[in-house]
């Protein structure tokens, strides 16, 4: 009798738990059934009248019903929680393709990039990076580099004169003299920087461009050493093995002086428009440091020797990125600069 009542209660409570449509309804069912004044509590009050034996049996039954209902309640609650979480997550849908706020990353100028890359390369080769001023004395820019006044070689570099024996440096070579005085022999140095030539500007000529001067002074420095150094450098710059050749070139601060050509990277030496069918592209001037220049740097040419070179960074940037108009580089146009 008691048992059947309990089973009826359990059955109807179970149904109501399942039927609860919201956490609130579920709570109402819980209060009605399992609350302090709920059906189960009522039922257990009635158990006082039973015999001890019946009471024990009814107690076990009651406990099992209670556990059953609590488990059902818990399951139902969890279901509601899951649904609520699911609903919240669903409501939190976002359009992941919307743009992120804040500025996009900026860019470094291509000349900065190539310069930093080369600085890193040289530094890894144990080479010091030096600076020199953009305004130089005529003496440092010419005389100290074995180009005395009225020397025809001064024609090779159209100069912006500033009066009082000053000029805008026409090359980074004056840093050779500064570097020798600063570092003393033996030394390995580079000096990238801005240089100036008094030239009309067009697609391939600029009055302002960038060079990287290099110099090594040691006990015995040979043309063979210079070749090795340049080949290593250029292979790194172009990201592949390059073939180089030297031919005579005249620069008063080196003796012997060379033009260094690389085998055309476009045609591999077979001849094409870029190399004017010669298979070679003129890349940089270099040479063994002239004894007069070593002396200017306070270095005894009988004890020491060296090589020096001047790499055109502007030209390198143009080659690397296929830039066909040199004026872009100092035009300040973000439509151009953003690309790097």
């Amino acid at each position, binding site marked *: 009798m008691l048992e059947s009542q309990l089973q009826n209660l359990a059955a109807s409570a179970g149904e109501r738990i399942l039927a609860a449509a919201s956490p609130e309804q579920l709570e109402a069912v819980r209060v009605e059934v399992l609350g302090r004044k709920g059906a189960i509590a009522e039922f257990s009050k009635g158990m006082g009248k039973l015999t001890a034996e019946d009471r024990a049996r009814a107690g076990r039954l009651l406990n099992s019903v209670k556990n059953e209902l609590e488990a059902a309640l818990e399951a139902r609650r969890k279901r509601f929680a899951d649904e609520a979480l699911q609903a919240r997550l669903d409501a939190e849908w976002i359009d992941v393709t919307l743009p992120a706020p804040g500025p996009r990353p900026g860019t470094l100028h291509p*000349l900065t990039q190539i310069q930093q890359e080369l600085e890193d390369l040289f530094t890894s080769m144990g080479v010091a*990076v030096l600076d020199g001023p953009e305004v130089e004395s005529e003496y440092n820019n010419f005389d100290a580099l074995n180009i005395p006044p009225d020397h*025809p070689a001064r024609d090779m570099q159209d100069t912006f*004169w500033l009066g009082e024996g000053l000029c*805008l440096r026409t090359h980074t070579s004056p840093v050779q003299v500064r570097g020798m005085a600063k570092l003393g022999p033996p030394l*390995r140095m580079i000096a990238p920087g801005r240089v100036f030539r008094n030239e009309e500007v067009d697609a391939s000529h600029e009055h302002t461009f960038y060079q990287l001067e290099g110099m090594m002074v040691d006990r015995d420095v040979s043309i063979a050493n210079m*070749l*090795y150094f340049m080949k290593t450098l250029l292979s790194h710059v172009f990201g592949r093995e390059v073939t180089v050749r*030297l031919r005579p070139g005249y620069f008063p601060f080196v003796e*012997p002086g060379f033009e260094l050509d690389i085998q055309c990277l476009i045609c591999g030496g077979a001849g094409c428009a870029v190399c004017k069918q010669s298979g070679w592209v003129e890349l940089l001037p270099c040479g063994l440091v002239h004894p007069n220049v070593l002396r200017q740097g306070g270095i005894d040419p009988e004890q020491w020797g060296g090589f020096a070179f001047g790499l055109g960074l502007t030209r390198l940037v143009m080659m690397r990125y296929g830039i066909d108009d040199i004026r872009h580089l100092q035009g300040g146009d973000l439509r151009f600069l953003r690309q790097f």
Partner: protein
Amino acid sequence: MKFSYNWIHELVEGLEASPADLTRLITIKTAECEGVEAAGAHFAQVVAARILEVEAIPGSHNRRAVADAGPLGRRTVVCGAPNCRAGIVTAYVPAGVFLEGREIGRRVVDGVESDGMLASGSELGINRDHEGILELDAEPGVPLPHIVPDHIIEVDNKSLTHRPDLWGHYGMAREAAAITGKRLLDPVRLERIPPGAAAVKVTIEDFQLCPRYSALVFENVTVRPSPLWLQYRLEAIGLNSINNIVDVTNYVMAELAQPMHAFDADKLSGDTIFVRNAREGERITALNGEAYDLTAASLVIADGSGPIAIAGVIGGLDSAISDSTTRLVLESANFHAANIRRTSSRLKLRTDASMRFEKSQDPVNTARGLARAVELLEMVSPGIRLTGGMADLAAPARTPAPITLPMDWLMRKLGRPIESAEVRSILESLMFGVSETSPGVFSVSVPSWRATKDISIKDDLVEEIGRMVGYATITPTAPVVPTKPPPDNPRRRFHRAVRQAVAAQGFHEVYNYSFLSEEDVRRFGLAPADHVAVANPISVDQALLRRTLIPGIWKNIRENSKHFDQFRLFEVGVEIHKREGGLPDEVPHLAAAIYERTKEAGPFYEVKRLAECLMPGCEPRPGSARMFEHPFRAADIVWRGETVGRLFEFHPDFVEGRAVVLDVDLARMEALAPVEKRYQPVRRFPGSAFDLSVIAPRRALAGDLRKQLASFAGPQLESIVYLRQYEGSPLPDDAKSVSFRLTVAATDRTLSSEEVGATRDAIIEGMRGLGYEMRV
């Protein structure tokens, strides 16, 4: 400089290298060739032809001519030349030949079919005469006498700067002979100069400026056009044919690199040629028709009445060779290179002569030039006669000491082994004198044409041997050097970090020129006189050196605002500040800008954020604005107690929309940047936070309020953070409320609420003491 392949070929016995090969060899071993081009290829097909009949074409200025072209037969051509007449022999160009890049055809002109053409000297590239067709002395059907196809090798003048000898074909032929192992043929026969007293006297004032002056006097001269072969040879290398006499001087110059000048002897006054400095106020009208004022710094050639030539640069008009000339003085001299160069730059007059002299020509060459000229003049001016021997005044010849060349030193420089015999043979092929003074040591004497400037030390010989043995034979070899880290360059590292940080904030790097115009600097309230000025600017708008990056950045903003509504850009570059006596100060600066087209608040605080990223803890300190700055949006940037830069918005007169700039002195910033970092113990006890609002005048600075609050908070203040500010009701119009969150804590305990309250009260009390109303 243009070189005729044929000419070189004449001077090198058995030269087999093709024009292209010779060009390549010269490039690799001697000097940079810019190219080689066929010249006069049409002369393989052009023939002499006798004009048989000429008749007018009605209604045309052209005429119909029938010419006998020998084996080619009779050809009918239409010809417009005024000298086209029956009986003359002229040049006939058959159809199919290319002339000046255009194919000569068989086509109908004025109703007449013209088969090929009759050509002028200009059309054929023999001279510049386009007045009429050539008139020849030749048999019909034969090729034009002594005129054959050639190749012109163009050599970069820069690569000849140190080689006075290569400014003539003989010098290049000497190289070709040495490179190919052939024999050089000397065109000069010195014995053509007769012995005996000269018919002209020469005095030289300063032998340093004129180390040698040689001259010959000729009589019975006929001045007339040069033979065509001579015209063609000069024309092919870009020299204009003038007349037979002048052409000979140019021929000798082009062959031997020795400039020469011919004076009409009858137009000279007195019998002495003076080589002297010009007197102040002297003036000369030169061959080019221009009058030049001379100064004492210029060397002139003068006769008894005044200058007759600017030495080494150009001759005078009055004494020039003319059709009536019958006697001439032929000058072949040597001048001081730097002096010629100075004169020619001062007069802005560069001539074929001055270009050669400024390279330091060989004094030995003067007599050789005259000897060669004697021979040529006899060819082109039949009946010409020398009067007397050579006038020849020279400083005592300087024989430079031989150069000592140790073999082991040479090999160390080259970086490859080489046999003594090979060194000797190379040097001898270039006509150096070589003797082995002790085993492995050569004594090398330098030929006169290399000794003026080019070669004086053993390093110069490394080049001679290196280029001839071939640089390609040198194997790249790693230098043996100690491996150690290079000296640091903190400045560069610092600039790199700055660039990286700025770019990371969305700024694009620009490079601007160092040049500004006067207008540019005035626009920014600066005086042009305070700038370093370029004495020879390309144009007036590039005449001053920038002492601020702002004008450049301003231009960048203006230009880019045409394409973008907003952008960020920056530059790292040097300001150039004038300094009396010595190099200017070059101060590295960062200038970074954000532009927004908006009229709204604008990007001021975004740029301020950049300043704070670069210089944590820096503070803007409002100061009086410059004329291009927004008067109420400009501040100095103070960092670690020093003013390091400026943060400002452009005045609306300067930029439409809003543009905010941060301009930082990177040298100062770098000096302040290093900070030794010390660990502070992490506070173990929690702090207590409370908010305070200060009612302050509207333009009171939040930064000041913050500092004042902090000063009353005492050592327990852990942080003070700005929260917000408020203006409007119920506050009075000229007031605002600024709220901060303060956190206080102790290192050894959790503060009690009484302690926190006491600190808070002290702050409120303090602020009220300063006259602020506090909202608590």
